[in-house]
């Protein structure tokens, strides 16, 4: 590893009317290395990234790029200096084609006689895509027609392209803010290959993720932030998950990760049953029973149909075949509120569009799904709403300036926690958790696992689509494995007899 400093940030401070997001953090990046950046939700990781790329102005502090002071006013300026970024939130324009997205903001380079030469642009786009191993993506396709994982690869291609477009011929810096949270294992592998290719050329990468194993795998050095401050930086050789955890959360992981000691044996009573359930073109012949007090895990790769089954349970879609029996009654939902009336509620996967209402306050969001319980004679009690919010902010350690803060101002992970609080507050009997811990920091994850266990102990039932296979196995009493729209296996996952990942993967693919 060469020892030239490519980029360094010193004493960066940033506050958003009242919230101190960054209080004096430092970061150095050497040429050709991957810097891992970890920290709790709201620690300020995304904020720092956005300052480097020029989306947000810094409060105070200095940044240096290749030894020279550096302060971009907008991302185009940063791009020209060879800095590119994959945002935590999706940043592709869904109505444009892949190629147009790749070169968005750079169309001028393809202008000929006042006309944009699309042909040339698409040819170039195809070249860029194949460079990151995505030859299979048609650059003329509209982004809206791609699934999220593919979109993420396009984002990465877009950034990689920056390194080539940069007006400097020096080394480039690439910022990846939780790029893997929506990727599956093979895709993550492909991304890592890309990252390695880039560093081999001498470019550098800052990699943000809550999946500590990934961070340990790809990084050369790791920075830990806590509450907007440096909480240590170390070479990867000196780091383990436990150390990182301790630095991030402030204490050691005190109990066993998945709280296996709290795993209970489900009751006999069946709360939800699928009989030969099917949805045209999505899944078929699905049979299972969910018992009271049970955590049922669903495993399967993308397109295996597990997401679609969830949308049927929560009432978002109607099944084409078979029967759905809830608490002994045959039902058919046409909208989620009907399912909620029967005590079924889901944490949706896409928190930004489906999970939270970003223009409403934290307390209103938490109160969304249980208006009934908060009201007296048809009137909602503001007192109960705010008491409930205070309670959940405390229990889930949601980092917010107050219960009236708008959700849009929270960090990504904290928004996810608000969704979780909403679903728990609804006190539904059956809770469908679709990636409940996506984007949540490890400390909070442990907390959430504890809450799921408590919930089950109270006699609720859970259907879990884990963020990782490990999580799915660790938490569940039983796992159903799906492939190509069919249930290919059903394994017991008692505390002492957890199935191995290998056995499940063999049924998944």
């Amino acid at each position: 590893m060469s020892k030239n400093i490519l980029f360094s940030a010193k004493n960066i401070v940033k506050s958003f009317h009242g919230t101190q997001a960054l209080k004096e953090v430092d970061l150095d990046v050497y040429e050709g290395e991957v810097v891992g950046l970890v920290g709790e939700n709201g620690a300020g990781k995304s904020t720092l990234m956005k300052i480097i790329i020029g989306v947000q102005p810094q409060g105070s502090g200095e940044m240096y790029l290749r030894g020279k002071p550096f302060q971009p006013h907008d991302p185009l300026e940063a791009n020209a200096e060879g800095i590119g970024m994959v945002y935590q939130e999706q940043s592709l324009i869904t109505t444009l084609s892949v190629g147009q997205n790749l070169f968005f903001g750079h169309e001028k380079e393809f202008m000929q006689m006042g006309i944009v030469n699309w042909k040339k642009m698409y040819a170039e786009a195809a070249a860029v895509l194949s460079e990151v191993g995505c030859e299979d993506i048609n650059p003329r396709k509209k982004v809206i027609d791609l699934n999220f994982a593919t979109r993420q690869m396009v984002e990465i291609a877009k950034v990689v392209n920056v390194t080539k477009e940069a007006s400097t011929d020096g080394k480039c810096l690439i910022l990846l803010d939780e790029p893997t949270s929506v990727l599956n294992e093979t895709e993550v592998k492909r991304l890592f290959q890309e990252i390695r290719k880039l560093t081999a050329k001498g470019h550098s990468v800052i990699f943000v993720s809550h999946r500590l194993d990934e961070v340990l795998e790809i990084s050369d050095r790791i920075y830990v932030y806590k509450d907007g401050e440096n909480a240590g930086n170390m070479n990867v050789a000196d780091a383990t998950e436990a150390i990182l955890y301790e630095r991030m959360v402030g204490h050691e992981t005190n109990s066993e990760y998945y709280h296996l000691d709290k795993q209970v044996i489900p009751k006999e009573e069946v709360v939800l049953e699928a009989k030969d359930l099917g949805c045209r073109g999505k899944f078929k012949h699905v049979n299972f029973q969910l018992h009271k007090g049970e955590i049922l895990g669903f495993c399967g790769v993308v397109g295996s149909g597990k997401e679609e089954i969830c949308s049927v349970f929560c009432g978002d879609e109607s099944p084409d075949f078979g029967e759905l029996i809830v608490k002994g009654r045959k039902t058919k939902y046409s909208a989620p509120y009907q399912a909620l009336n029967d005590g079924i509620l889901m944490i949706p996967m896409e928190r930004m569009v489906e999970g939270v209402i970003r223009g409403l306050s934290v307390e209103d969001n938490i109160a969304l799904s249980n208006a009934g319980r908060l009201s007296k004679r048809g009137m909602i009690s503001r007192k109960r709403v705010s008491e409930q919010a205070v309670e959940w902010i405390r229990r889930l350690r949601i980092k917010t300036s107050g219960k009236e803060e708008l959700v849009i101002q929270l960090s990504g992970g904290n928004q996810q926690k608000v969704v979780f609080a909403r679903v728990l507050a609804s006190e539904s009997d059956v809770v469908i958790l679709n990636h409940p811990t996506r984007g949540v920091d490890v400390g909070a994850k442990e907390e959430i696992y504890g809450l799921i266990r408590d919930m089950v102990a109270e006699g609720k039932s859970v259907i879990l689509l884990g963020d990782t296979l490990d999580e799915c196995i660790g938490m569940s009493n039983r796992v159903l494995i799906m492939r190509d729209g069919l249930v290919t296996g059903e394994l017991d996952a008692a505390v002492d007899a957890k199935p191995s990942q290998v056995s499940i993967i063999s049924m998944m693919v």
Partner: protein
Amino acid sequence: MNKLKTNKAYFATYFSMAVIICLVLIFTIMEKSFINSSNINNLLSDTAPLMIMAAGMTPVILIGSIDLSVGAMCSVSNVLVVSFIMKFKDTIYADWFIMLVTFVTTLVFAVIAGIILGLIHVKLKVPSFIASLAFMSIWNSAALLISNSPISIPKKLWGTIDWYKISIGPLGYPLVIAFLIIIGYYVILTRTSLGRGIYAIGANERAARMSGIAVDRIKITAFAVNGFCAALGAIFLMAKAKSCAPTVGDSFTLMVISAVVLGGTALIGGSGNILNTILGVFIVSIIKNGMNIVSINVYWQKVVFGVVVLIAIAINTDRSSRSFIVK
């Protein structure tokens, strides 16, 4: 910190108040008679039809939809109520009874019409802008078909619409009704799950649906309520003009929506306060009233109206906390 944030919610109210005070001051300085009692009486009674329609429109805009058919709905209710009266005027029933029955019939009709529009919007996924635009044409035609010329209420029945002129203190009776309805809506919007659903849908419909809010039902309710208010406005207009006309509502559509927006309700939905709609309506009507009182040259009135509306809304919008996109 928190205090500051909650206070921000009231800024819109303060700004609207400030706009109103400025307008009143300016007009009074220009022409003393602006604040003489009969003009204040006019202001406080004649805003009733606009007020009631704006009240109905507010929830529709809060859910992020729009209803361009209010004006036409008002026209059709207006001719409907009078043609019913004309049908029954010679029957044996007491006049007040005829009035009551015709009012109720018209209101029911309007609610049903609102529900139909809501259903088409919600179930067939037609954007409310275009669905209501189509309904605007349809109701315009319907009004003309019911009566293609204005009908006057016969003199013998004038007694039954005298209530329009009753006033409680300086407040006209119809305006009191409008206020009561707005306060009722305020309670519903802030204190019931229906109201919270309305805000949630406006802010993020998909998330509202997924969190178990009965989106379709609430949306249809908003349109039904809007229909009701348009018909009530039509009844007020009938009493005010002692007649009906098939085109009476035409000029209201944009005025109603503008008043709601001037009251600080966001057109993209999800934020706003129905009490401020009252202020928005007053801003519009004070501008119109004041321009007549200070007798601005009629060729200039439109220009002045536009400029004043622009200034009013520029003062009125609270830009400091606006992290949202303005469309």
